[in-house]
């Protein structure tokens, strides 16, 4: 049995002294495709930020690939795809330059790119289907294409474990389908994927396990839910009655949610 890439026991996160996540027990086995679902403010993004070390844990023990977080240094095994920020940086950067920065996890200081590095960068750009746009400025791409650039950047370091924070937010439906194809390719390579989503849309068939969060706690952990269940329209054993309505995870119809 290979060691689990992510293991968190009794994790809690406090922001400004106020507890935001409580009592999180989570183990992600190698090769799993896990979706973290929940309404806005439920703590799903905070959980991913805690698992990547961007938010310190107030309590609990986090191990990544069997190493306690404090001693963890194998960052090349992790690929992080943050939420696409609206504001581009102040200086133009090409697709290839942004993807190249993902290779830093495997590069030594003051060394130029080697042949292996270049190949990994080319492969990453090709996998997300942006080879013909590699020289273009990132700011000239559409939202979905920019999201694929961020996936390629994570991919360039050849990681085993991916964290994706709301990759489909603000991306139109055809582009969501392209994203889903990209993630399927990653899954087929045996990558472990932890995905935060407000709505799954075309990603739904890929998900092997769903975790639903509400008010900083895990309220459901198990087999993927049908969209109706996540919507809370049907009574479900795992979701108590009071978890529906306002607080229920909202998965809008992809057709309504996709337009920009």
């Amino acid at each position, binding site marked *: 049995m290979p060691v689990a890439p992510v293991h968190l026991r009794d994790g809690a996160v406090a922001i400004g002294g106020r507890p935001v996540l409580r009592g999180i027990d989570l183990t992600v086995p190698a090769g799993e495709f896990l979706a973290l679902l929940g309404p806005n403010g439920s703590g799903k993004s905070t959980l991913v930020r805690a698992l990547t070390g961007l938010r310190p844990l107030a309590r609990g023990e986090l191990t990544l690939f069997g190493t306690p977080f404090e001693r963890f240094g194998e960052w090349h095994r992790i690929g*992080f795809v943050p939420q696409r920020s609206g504001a581009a940086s102040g200086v133009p*950067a090409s697709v290839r330059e942004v993807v190249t920065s993902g290779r830093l996890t495997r590069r030594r200081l003051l060394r130029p790119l080697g042949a292996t590095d270049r190949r990994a960068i080319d492969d990453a750009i090709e996998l997300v289907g942006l080879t013909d746009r590699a020289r273009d400025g990132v700011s000239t791409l559409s939202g979905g294409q920019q999201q694929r650039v961020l996936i390629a950047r994570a991919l360039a370091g050849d990681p085993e474990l991916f964290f994706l924070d709301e990759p489909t937010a603000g991306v139109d439906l055809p582009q969501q389908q392209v994203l889903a194809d990209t993630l399927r390719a990653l899954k087929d390579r045996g990558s472990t994927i932890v995905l935060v989503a407000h709505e799954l849309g075309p990603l739904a068939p890929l998900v092997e396990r769903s975790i639903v969060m509400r008010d900083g706690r895990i309220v459901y952990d198990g087999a993927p839910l049908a969209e109706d269940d996540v919507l809370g329209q049907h009574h479900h054993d795992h979701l108590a009655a009071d978890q529906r309505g306002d607080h229920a995870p909202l998965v809008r119809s992809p057709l309504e949610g996709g337009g920009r």
Partner: protein
Amino acid sequence: MNASELLSYPFMQRALLAALFTGLAAPAIGTYLVQRRLALMGDGIGHVAVTGVALGLVTGWSPTWTAVVVAVLGAVLIEVIRERGHTNGDVALALLFYGGLAGGVLVTGLGGQSAAQLQQYLFGSITTISAGDVIVTMVLAALVILVCVGLAPQLFAVAQDPEFARVAGLKVRVYNVLVAVLAAVSVTVAMRTVGLLLVSALMVVPVATSQQLSRTFRATLVSAMALGCLASVGGLTISAFASYHATVAPGPTIVLLSLAGFVVTWPIGAWLRHRARLHAPFADEPVGHDVTDTHPHDHGPACGHVAVPHDDHVDYVHDGHRHAPHGAHYDEH
């Protein structure tokens, strides 16, 4: 008066060397400041350095070195406030602007020094630079250039997306402080060339000019350094020749020459961006089959209408319509 005669003056040789190195170093670090949207950080550090210069004038130590020390402290303070404070970076910068400038003027007065001496540092006095100062300028500028180019992959990643950089295992805080310190060093390097009040212009304007035409970070960095060099050496030369007819200070000449470069390139950049927007491919699906009314004009590659790729065909855009060829007629897309 010709160029070789001008070059034969030792003070001019020193000034040109200082201008060359300053012109390369200031835009190099400026590119990272602009990338972080901290274009005014150089200004803030420059104002803090005024206090450093004043301390040097009053105590009799070298104003260059007291300015370096105070500017580095100020820059690190700005970085700490920015990281910890959760307040807007611009408020932190504003506090240091006014504190630094007021402190400098006050200390100069208290020490019984004349304002004229401080003014050398406020607006530059490149032609009075000493041989020792030229060497210090060259060494510090070379250091800034080496770090900015050598650590470019790391500095780029940290400025582009600090959170991604952290998860990639980079020591983001170390790099942030490094950029702040390099900015402070560049400010003191450029202090003698263009003066503390104009130093930020040499860090920012060449970057603003080069990104009008560049699409990549590397091209922006390299061309900003070339433009900065051109502006500082060119501005110094212009002011040297013009000095025979009128009082022309080198510092403002350098800055205005740099700005002139921006004024010339901006319309070109604006036109290129406008054109790129017009020709961006349409992604949406055609709704239904909407045939145009009788269309007297034949669209083609040479017809002069804006041709925009749309899936597997080309839309011709004119008068608020998108016309796609479909057999013998045109569809409205």
